[in-house]
């Protein structure tokens, strides 16, 4: 009845015009002007890049990759939560930048691939010889045999950070078991310090903690249940939900944590107001910069039957890693493809430099890092299994429902049994 693109733009305008004036920020959408700008540029073609990762190494790596490729870089950092909205609108309206970063997980990757707006990279990977630098299985080949993305991050995982100064003042040590964790929560509360800072407003931090608690009960529980070989009402899920309830009831999280934004909660931890912080390993750099030697790290404690190094929760899986995609409508698609690949390799060098396992060959030598990051690198090499975060394995609508459900558990609206019963109903639809 109507042209798809016009329809999407028109409907998006109707839906968004009321409310998104504050969300777009100052970042201009360059998609529509790319053609004119390319024509105006006599010597260098330009490439616009959207990045949600706040680590400054992304910009320096992008500048280096642009210089290598011979393009003019238009780098746009967009705050993470805003990025998700902005990208999904740009995707629906086919107004993407030349190159863009995408979060890990099926719920983020699938819409990008289904939109048919991204270019296959096979030809450039082959013609430049750069494809050979990626390690085995690090480039995802889709069902049609094409490679549409290159990695933009290593496999980051969920870890427990702690504040060394506060823990020392409490006369305690980093928790190794469930009992240690409970004792530390009590000790912190007795001293009027927040035990664990948690950003409950965006919900993801809380659902990752639940994922981790389930993995600590049984590392195979989720895989079995999602395949239909077990149920989400089985003991590991109920026990983990009970542990969430115990943590909430023992005031393990700051007052009003359900209304706390992730960054606000992080500030509590950075500013010596909270003892522990459950977050991704991707934050080592920024937390180290803010807290220096005061930052402590441990693999998440043994809260159930499984050992601490039996499994961790990963922010990506092999099929849906953090990626860089290239817009197939880009005015400079060939340059954009080469730029994206070179950027991916530059970022890999930075990870290797930090002592972390990269996804591609690198001639960069690992520089000495702080002890905590070294400990993490050692732990992750010994960790038996990385369980992809559940949200990343679910479709967008089921994933959001899952997050709503975990918030209801943390908010005390559901008992462990009610929660797992609803979980079983919800995730069974995701099969």
């Amino acid at each position, binding site marked *: *009845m*109507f042209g798809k693109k016009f*329809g*999407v733009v*028109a*409907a998006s*305008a*109707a*839906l*968004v015009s*009321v*409310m*998104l*004036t*504050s*969300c777009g920020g100052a970042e201009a959408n360059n998609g529509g002007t790319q053609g004119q700008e390319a024509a105006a540029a006599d010597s260098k073609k330009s490439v616009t890049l959207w990045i949600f990762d706040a680590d400054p190494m992304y910009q320096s790596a992008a500048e280096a990759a642009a210089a290598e490729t011979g393009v003019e870089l238009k780098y746009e950092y967009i705050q993470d939560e805003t990025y*998700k*909205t902005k990208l*999904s*609108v740009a*995707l*629906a309206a086919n107004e993407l930048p030349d190159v863009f970063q995408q979060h890990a997980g099926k719920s983020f990757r699938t*819409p990008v691939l*289904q*939109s048919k707006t991204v270019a296959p990279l096979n030809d450039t990977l082959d013609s430049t010889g750069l494809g050979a630098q990626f390690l085995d299985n690090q480039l995802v080949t889709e069902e049609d045999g094409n490679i549409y993305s290159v990695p933009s991050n290593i496999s980051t995982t969920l870890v427990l950070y702690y504040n060394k100064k506060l823990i020392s003042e409490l006369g305690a040590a980093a928790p190794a078991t469930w009992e240690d964790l409970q004792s530390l929560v009590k000790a912190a509360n007795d001293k009027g310090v*927040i035990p664990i800072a948690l950003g*409950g*407003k*965006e*919900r993801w931090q809380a659902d990752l903690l639940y994922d981790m608690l389930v993995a600590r009960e049984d590392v195979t529980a989720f895989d079995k249940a999602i395949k239909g070989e077990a149920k989400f009402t089985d003991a590991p899920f109920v026990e983990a939900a009970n542990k969430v309830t115990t943590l909430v009831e023992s005031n393990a999280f*700051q*007052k*009003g*944590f*359900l*209304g*706390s*934004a992730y960054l*606000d909660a992080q500030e*509590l931890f950075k500013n010596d*107001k909270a003892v522990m912080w459950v977050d991704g390993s991707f934050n080592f750099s920024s937390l180290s910069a803010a807290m220096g030697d005061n930052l402590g790290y441990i693999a998440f404690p043994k809260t159930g039957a499984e050992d601490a190094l039996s499994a961790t929760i990963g922010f990506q899986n092999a099929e849906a890693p953090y990626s860089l995609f290239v817009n197939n409508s880009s005015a400079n698609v060939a340059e954009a493809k080469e730029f994206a690949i070179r950027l991916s390799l530059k970022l890999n060098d930075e990870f290797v430099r930090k002592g972390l396992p990269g996804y591609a060959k690198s001639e960069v030598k690992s520089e000495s890092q702080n002890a905590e990051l070294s400990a993490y690198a050692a732990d992750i090499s010994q960790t038996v299994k990385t369980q992809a975060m559940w949200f990343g394995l679910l479709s*967008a*609508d089921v994933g*959001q*429902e899952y997050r*709503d459900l975990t*918030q*209801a558990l943390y*908010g005390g*609206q559901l008992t462990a049994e009610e929660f797992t019963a609803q979980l079983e109903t919800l995730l069974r639809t995701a099969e």
Partner: protein
Amino acid sequence: MEKALSNKKIIALFLLPGLIVFLVFYFVPIVMTAYYSLQDWDGINPMAFIGLDNYTKMFTADKSFWQAVWNSLAFLLVGVLIQLPVSFGLALLVSRRMKGRKWFRNIYFFPVVMSTTMVSLLWVKIYDPNIGMLNTLMETLGLGAWTGAWLGDTKTALLSVLIVTTWHYVGYNMLILFAGMQGIPEQYYEAAKLDGATGWKAVRHITFPLLSDVLRICIVLNVIYALKTFESVYVMTNGGPLNSTTVIALKMFQEAFLKQNFGYGSALAVFMVLECLVISWVLNKVLTQEKIEY
């Protein structure tokens, strides 16, 4: 020029660009949104016609929809029953000939010039139960027992957001009402004074009746603003905790752009448009009265 402007065809020609802009950017998107509301569509893949299924889901299966409707109505009621009377009171105060009235007027109006995002972020910090000013102030005043998690508690989150929106927009209504009051000739009050009508009597028999048109505009604006509320809720609570502050506009955004249920999001958008139209129409009917002249 005058001759040209008396020609209806030329007038129509002048109006045409505006009409085209209106049709393309307002009317067509509304019609298209209504069309999408009848589809099962994620915004990317081919759509499938499902008739009124999205509306059936909205009214019967979506538990948070009715919560969102109620919350939107709470914004409406507070806007009309609390914000407007407070604005009226402030407008009365600043219209009096007293020292510093310009200063007061500017102070009350100041929040209006701040962006909603900025105001919301400011209040998020004020409400923060761990480092926020409000709890600290209450503890200092010996009201420690009354401190709360404000935005993080389902019992207080909606009220907390409502207080902020009232604070933010009270000056806007005040200024409109103040301007209306300035248009009431002073001799009416002087004549009333001779008849013994001062204070509240003068307000009731002179200010209220002569301000009825302005009040009606304020009510309609407040209602439309309340039903369209998005930014403040998005920034302060994102609809949480546990959907306690979800409003229709936010739910529409979440469905369309986070859950990628573009069809269902469109159905919510259609509901919101119809809701605004119906309530505005009813209000216009109810509040319309013959112009009063003394």
